[in-house]
């Protein structure tokens, strides 16, 4: 291996114009993404403001539906909410109120919306968090196995099942599970509770209470996991299938790597990139799932809070939950983007 410098062609070789790596670095990538999220957040606030104040035309009518009858009442209402001010000033007030946590008072509960939201946050996080983790792990695994053995029976069965689950409203699946496993059917008795987060006679802070809550969460978590899982496995499968045609997999195979090494070292790692992006784009559907499944299983979370507010209608609650949901999605999006940056060196360096 001492032969290198002998050839003159080799010496000139390095003279070729070099691509200097642009050192943007991960820090500035993070900065850029955070800035983007702040932009999204601002846009969301604008949408929110217009949805509730400008779109209905007559906020006094919408926001205080049915409760303001006389001219004087309407005027008082308008004054309280600063609705006679110019729009930009109203917007500033709205911003100020939002950031100081003044989200209005619930018509239904006669409590500040911010307090309601704080109370209802935990069950939602518990439900959505558990389901998302389970669905991601199982879904990604199924997607990988399906794509790698595409056309196999395993692939056909999992893809068929995923497509069917994907086509299914998740709350309908929840209803079926309640009917089958909660209520019981034919000769089978119901095993699981049909709704709620804990039994009335159990102290939720005791060990028994924790087990009781876990028992209550089995059906809703199963429902949401199946719903999310369908999406994740389909995304992972198609990302990996896209990867299969890539030339560097052929390189890896030519190097004499075992099939499983080609898959795990090269294909999966790269397929996780588009998967992360698409999952980030689809975070909104995590929220929808939470709303409907909480409703069906009567879990006292943010979703149930929002759907209960529909019939009243309790606009301040709707606005508050909408704000929280949007902020949650933007935050989750940011996390996904940062994760993407960690996975992809083209972004990092």
């Amino acid at each position, binding site marked *: *291996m001492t*032969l*290198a410098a*002998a*050839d003159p*062609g*080799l*010496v*000139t*070789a*390095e003279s*070729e*114009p*070099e*691509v200097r*790596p642009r050192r943007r670095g991960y820090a500035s990538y993070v900065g850029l993404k955070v800035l983007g999220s702040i932009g999204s957040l601002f846009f969301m606030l604008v949408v929110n403001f217009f949805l509730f104040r400008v779109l209905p035309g007559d906020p006094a009518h919408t926001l205080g539906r049915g409760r303001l009858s006389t001219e004087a009442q309407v005027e008082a209402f308008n004054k309280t909410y600063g609705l006679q001010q110019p729009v930009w000033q109203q917007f500033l007030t709205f911003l100020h109120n939002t950031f100081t946590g003044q989200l209005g008072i619930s018509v239904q509960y006669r409590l500040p919306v911010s307090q309601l939201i704080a109370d209802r946050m935990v069950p939602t996080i518990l439900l959505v968090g558990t389901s998302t983790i389970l669905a991601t792990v199982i879904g990604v695994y199924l997607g990988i196995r399906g794509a790698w053995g595409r056309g196999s029976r395993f692939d056909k069965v999992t893809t068929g099942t995923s497509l069917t689950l994907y086509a299914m409203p998740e709350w309908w699946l929840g209803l079926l599970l309640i009917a089958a496993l909660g209520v019981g059917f034919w000769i089978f008795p119901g095993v699981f509770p049909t709704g709620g987060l804990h039994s009335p006679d159990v102290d939720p802070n005791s060990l028994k209470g924790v087990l009781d809550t876990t028992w209550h969460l089995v059906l809703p978590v199963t429902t949401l996991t199946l719903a999310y899982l369908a999406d994740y496995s389909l995304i992972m499968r198609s990302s990996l299938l896209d990867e299969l045609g*890539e*030339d*560097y997999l*052929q*390189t*890896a*195979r*030519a*190097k*004499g*790597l*075992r099939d499983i*090494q080609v898959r795990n*070292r*090269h294909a999966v*790692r*790269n397929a996780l*990139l588009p998967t992360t992006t698409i999952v980030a784009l689809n975070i909104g559907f995590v929220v929808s799932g939470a709303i409907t499944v909480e409703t069906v299983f009567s879990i006292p979370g943010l979703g149930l809070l929002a759907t209960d507010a529909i019939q009243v209608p309790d606009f301040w609650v709707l606005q508050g939950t909408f704000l929280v949901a949007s902020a949650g999605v933007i935050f989750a999006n940011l996390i996904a983007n940062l994760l993407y940056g960690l*996975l*992809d*060196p*083209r972004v990092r*360096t």
Partner: protein
Amino acid sequence: MSTSELLEMRDVHVTYRTSEGELPAVRGVDLTVRRGQIVGVAGESGCGKSTLASTVLRLQAANAMVSGEVLFDGQDVLTMRWGDLRAVRWVGASIVFQGALHSLNPVHRIGAQIAEPIQVHAPGLAEGRVRERIESLLEQVGLDPARARSYPHQLSGGQKQRVMIAMALACDPQLVVADEPTTALDVMVQAQVLGVLSGLVRERGLGMMMISHDLSVLGDLCDRITVMYAGRVVEEGPAEQIFADPLHPYSAALSAAFPRVGDPSARFAPSGLPGDPPLPWDLPGGCTFAPRCPRAAEVCLPAEPVLTSYGEGRAAACVRIGQPDETQHHGSPGEVAS
């Protein structure tokens, strides 16, 4: 180790099974590469040369049916057990893939990608030794050893291609298959990369199969050249003779085509040759080249010509060789076709 034939392909057929039916990509090709010999395979894109190359390491697509024999060092790659095949891959023969742009994994460092075959085939090797080896390989292809820590996107096209070459030499193979190693590069860089590649191959006495659409490149570097058209060998012989004095009209058209800088279309369509190569699912009867051939005549239509010997080490598949051109009044084939 006793024979001088490193690679011997005998009557290789490759057919792709697709939803549209069976597509014959390679139709009965014989090819031999000896130790220390550089053999060029020339032809337009779609003539089956890359498919042929993929069979050397049994890397053909899953829907490809292969028949015939591909003997590497006397053993048939197509029928050997998986364990033996994995041992042949990269240690026996390695490939410099076309378009290094996509042949390197974007999320792994260059060093790790060069190290990978070494670690796979010599698992016990100390990490320090592997690193030394990578650095010396990078030096040999004229790259800064510090480049090992770079990612592919931080390198230029020429640098990436040289990384591919370093990678191909990582396990000291006996045969290197270079599949259009310079397609995506501009002419200056092309010359440099080809210089590096052929220099290293010559110094080590390796065998090389070099695939290109550019006959002028092959004419400079190779000992022998095989010209392929529509999945078959149409001419075969010593490089300088094929380039300077082609027998087959298709070789003549290829050698007349000089690559023009900055015009990508000129690289794929030889100048002076009208039309496109035939589609594999719609091959013309008789000589497959006849519809585009300036010398086509009635005799070309009944049957596909067989490869016939013309002097020592030369063969071509054309019935019109040595026949006078009495069909001048037909004019150019472009008019015939219209």
